[in-house]
C-alpha cells in the first residue's frame, strides 16, 4: 500500500512537472509567434494557471493518447487568449505548439517501450522535459515575425502541414507491422518537416513584408513623377502666358481705346483660364507636402471631389519624404475612395498644422457606408481585398510610431476623420 501510495505521489509529481514544462514551452512559443501581451496582468496569470492545470492533467499517466493531445491544444488555446494578435496567427501557434509537444512525448514513449518500464520511466520522462525545455529556449531565440499578416492562402498552406502531421503521427503509431525504430524515425522525419516549415514561414513573412515595402516605395515614386509632370505643365502654361503678355496687353489697350468693355472682360477671362488660376494649387513652400497634396488634389479634382486644404507649416521644416507620402498618401487615398461613392457632398478637408513643434494632420470627409471594427476595436476596411488594403493603415501606424505619434481615425457626427499627431 505504502509503495503504491508513493508511486502515485511520484506520478502526480511527474505530471505537475510535465505541466510546468509544458506551460513554459507554450509560453516560449507564444512569445516567439505572437505579438506582445497587452491585456491585464491578472488575466495573463490566470491563463497560465489554467494552462498549467490542463497540461498537468494531460501529463498524468504515461500513455500518449488523444486526451493528451487535446490537453496541449486546450492549454495553448487558453494561453493564446492573453495575447493580442490575429486569430490566424493564434491558431497557427496553437497547432504548432501542440504538435511539437505531442511529437516529443510520442518519441519518449517509444524510447521507453524498449526499456524495463518501472525502472526507467521517471528518468526518461524527466529527460523528455529537458528536451522540451531546450527546444523552447531555441524557439524563444527565434526572431519574432513582424506584425504583418500573410494573405489567407499562404496561411492555409502553412497551417495545413502541422495538422496533417498530427494525423500522420497518430496513424504511424497505430500501424501494425512496423517496428519501433521505424515508427521512431517516422515521427522524427515528420517533426523535421514541420521545423523546416517554421523556417520557411519566417522567410515567407520576411519576403512578403519586403514586397509590401516595395509597393509603398513605388507608390511614392508615382507621386513624385506625377507631381513633377503637373508642375512642369503649369510652368509651361505660365511661360506661354508670360510670352503672350505683351501681345495681350496691346490687345487690351486697343480694345480700351475703342471703349469695348465687354470684349476686355472676355479677354481677361480667357487669359485667367489658360494660366490655370482657377485650379487649386497648394503652395505651402514645403516641397514634400506640396507634391503629395497637389498630386492628390489633382486626382480629387478629376473625380469631381472638392479638395480644401490648409497647410500652416514652416516651409523649411525637415520631413522625411517617404514617411510623409505613406501617411498622407494613404489617408487621402482612403478619403477619396470613401467620397467617390457619395452622390453629394463630395468634399475632402485637409488641415496640416505645426503646433508647439509638432505636426498635426487632419483629414475629414463625409461617408456613406457603415463602419466595421474588428475584435480589437480597430477599423476594418470595406474593400473586398481586406488584407492588402489594411496594409495602408498598418503602414501609417508603423511610421507614426517611429515619431512617438498616434493615428486616430473614426466617424464623428457626420464626418469620417483621420488625425495624425507626430513629434518631429
Amino acid at each position, binding site marked *: 500500500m505504502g509503495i503504491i501510495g508513493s508511486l502515485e505521489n511520484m506520478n502526480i509529481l511527474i505530471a505537475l512537472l510535465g505541466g510546468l514544462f509544458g506551460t513554459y514551452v507554450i509560453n516560449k512559443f507564444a512569445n516567439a509567434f505572437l505579438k506582445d501581451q497587452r491585456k491585464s496582468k491578472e488575466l495573463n496569470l490566470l491563463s497560465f494557471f489554467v494552462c498549467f492545470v490542463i497540461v498537468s492533467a494531460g501529463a498524468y499517466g504515461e500513455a500518449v493518447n488523444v486526451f493528451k493531445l487535446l490537453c496541449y491544444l486546450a492549454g495553448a488555446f487558453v494561453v493564446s487568449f492573453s495575447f493580442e494578435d490575429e486569430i490566424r496567427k493564434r491558431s497557427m501557434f496553437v497547432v504548432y505548439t501542440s504538435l511539437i509537444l505531442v511529437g516529443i512525448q510520442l518519441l519518449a514513449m517509444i524510447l521507453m517501450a524498449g526499456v524495463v518500464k518501472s525502472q526507467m520511466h521517471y528518468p526518461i520522462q524527466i529527460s523528455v522535459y529537458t528536451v522540451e525545455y531546450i527546444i523552447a529556449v531555441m524557439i524563444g531565440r527565434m526572431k519574432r515575425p513582424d506584425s504583418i499578416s500573410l494573405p489567407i492562402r499562404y496561411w492555409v498552406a502553412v497551417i495545413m502541414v502541422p495538422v496533417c502531421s498530427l494525423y500522420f503521427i497518430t496513424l504511424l503509431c497505430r500501424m501494425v507491422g512496423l517496428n519501433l525504430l521505424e515508427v521512431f524515425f517516422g515521427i522524427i522525419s515528420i517533426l523535421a518537416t514541420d521545423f523546416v516549415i517554421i523556417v520557411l514561414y519566417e522567410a515567407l513573412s520576411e519576403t512578403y513584408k519586403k514586397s509590401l515595402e516595395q509597393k509603398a516605395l513605388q507608390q511614392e515614386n508615382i507621386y513624385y513623377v506625377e507631381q513633377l509632370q503637373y508642375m512642369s505643365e503649369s510652368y509651361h502654361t505660365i511661360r506661354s502666358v508670360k510670352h503672350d503678355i505683351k501681345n495681350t496687353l496691346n490687345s487690351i489697350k486697343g480694345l480700351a481705346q475703342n471703349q469695348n468693355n465687354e470684349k476686355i472682360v472676355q479677354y481677361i477671362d480667357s487669359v485667367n483660364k489658360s494660366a490655370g488660376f482657377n485650379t487649386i494649387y497648394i503652395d*505651402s513652400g514645403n516641397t514634400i507636402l506640396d507634391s503629395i497634396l497637389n498630386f492628390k488634389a489633382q486626382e480629387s479634382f478629376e473625380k469631381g471631389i472638392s479638395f480644401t486644404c490648409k497647410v*500652416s507649416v514652416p*516651409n523649411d521644416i525637415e520631413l522625411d519624404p517617404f514617411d510623409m507620402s505613406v501617411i498622407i498618401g494613404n489617408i487621402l487615398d482612403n478619403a477619396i475612395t470613401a467620397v467617390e461613392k457619395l452622390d453629394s457632398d463630395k468634399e475632402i478637408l485637409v488641415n496640416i498644422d505645426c503646433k*508647439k513643434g509638432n505636426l*498635426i494632420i487632419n483629414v475629414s470627409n463625409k461617408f456613406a457606408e457603415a463602419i466595421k471594427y474588428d475584435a480589437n476595436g480597430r477599423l476594418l476596411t470595406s474593400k473586398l481585398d481586406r488584407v492588402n488594403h489594411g496594409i495602408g493603415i498598418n503602414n501609417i501606424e508603423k511610421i507614426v510610431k517611429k515619431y512617438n*505619434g498616434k493615428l486616430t481615425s473614426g466617424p464623428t457626427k457626420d464626418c469620417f476623420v483621420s488625425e495624425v499627431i507626430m513629434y518631429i
Partner: protein
Amino acid sequence: MIKIAICDDDAIISEQLQNMIYSMEEFLHEEFHVDIYIGGNKLYEELKKGTEFHAIFLDIEMPDMDGIDVGRKIREEFHDEITQIIYISSQSSYAMQLFKVRPMDFLIKPLDELQVKAVVTKAYNLIKIGNQIFPFVVGRETIRKPISKILYFQSRARKVIMYTTDETYEFYGNLGDIYEQLKANKFFFIHKSYLVNYNHISRLGYEALVMTDGAQLEISQSKRKEVRELHAKFERRV
C-alpha cells in the same frame, strides 16, 4: 471689451477685416475695439507706449518693419506671451521664424469671411478663458491672478509653487484641487507634481516640454500618452 489691433500696409484689407470683426459682436455677445495700424512701425511705436491688445492681426509682408519683426518684438522685447497673434499673408508659405512667435493661426489674402469668423471665435474663446481669475491665499492675503498669466504649478511637500509670467508664489494647497478648478482652462498634469498651462507651452516634446519662460519640464512616462491625446484634442479644429 476685447481690444484688437490690425497691422497691415494695405488700408483696404485692414478696413475689410475690421468690418468682419465688428460683425461678430452680435454673434459673440461681446464688444470689440479694433484699431488699425498701417505699417509695422506704427504698431511698434504704439506698443512701446505700453498699449496692450488681446489679439493682433499681423501682416507678414510689410515694407518698413515686417510681421516677423513685430511678432518677435512682442514676444522678446515686451516679454508678452499672452497676446494672440494671427498672421495675414498673401502667400501660403511660411518661414520657420514665424513659428517661433507662436502664432494662433494664419489667414490668407484675399480674406475669406468664414475663415476670419472662425479665427475670431477661436481667439475670443482663448481670451475669455485667459481673462478668468484664479484666486489663492498667501498668508492672510487673497491674490487674484488672471489665468493667462499662470505658467505652471509645482507641488513641494504641502505647498504649491505657482510660476507666472511675472512672479513666483508659494502657498498651501493641493494640486488635485487646483486641477479641478482649472482643467477647463487647458491645465493638465505632466507629472504627479507638475500641473501646466497648455497655452504657455512653447515646445511640446513626447518626453519633455519647454515653457514660454524657458523652463524645461519632464513628462512622466505614465502621462506621455495622455498628454499626446490632450495635445491633439486642444489643436483640433471643430
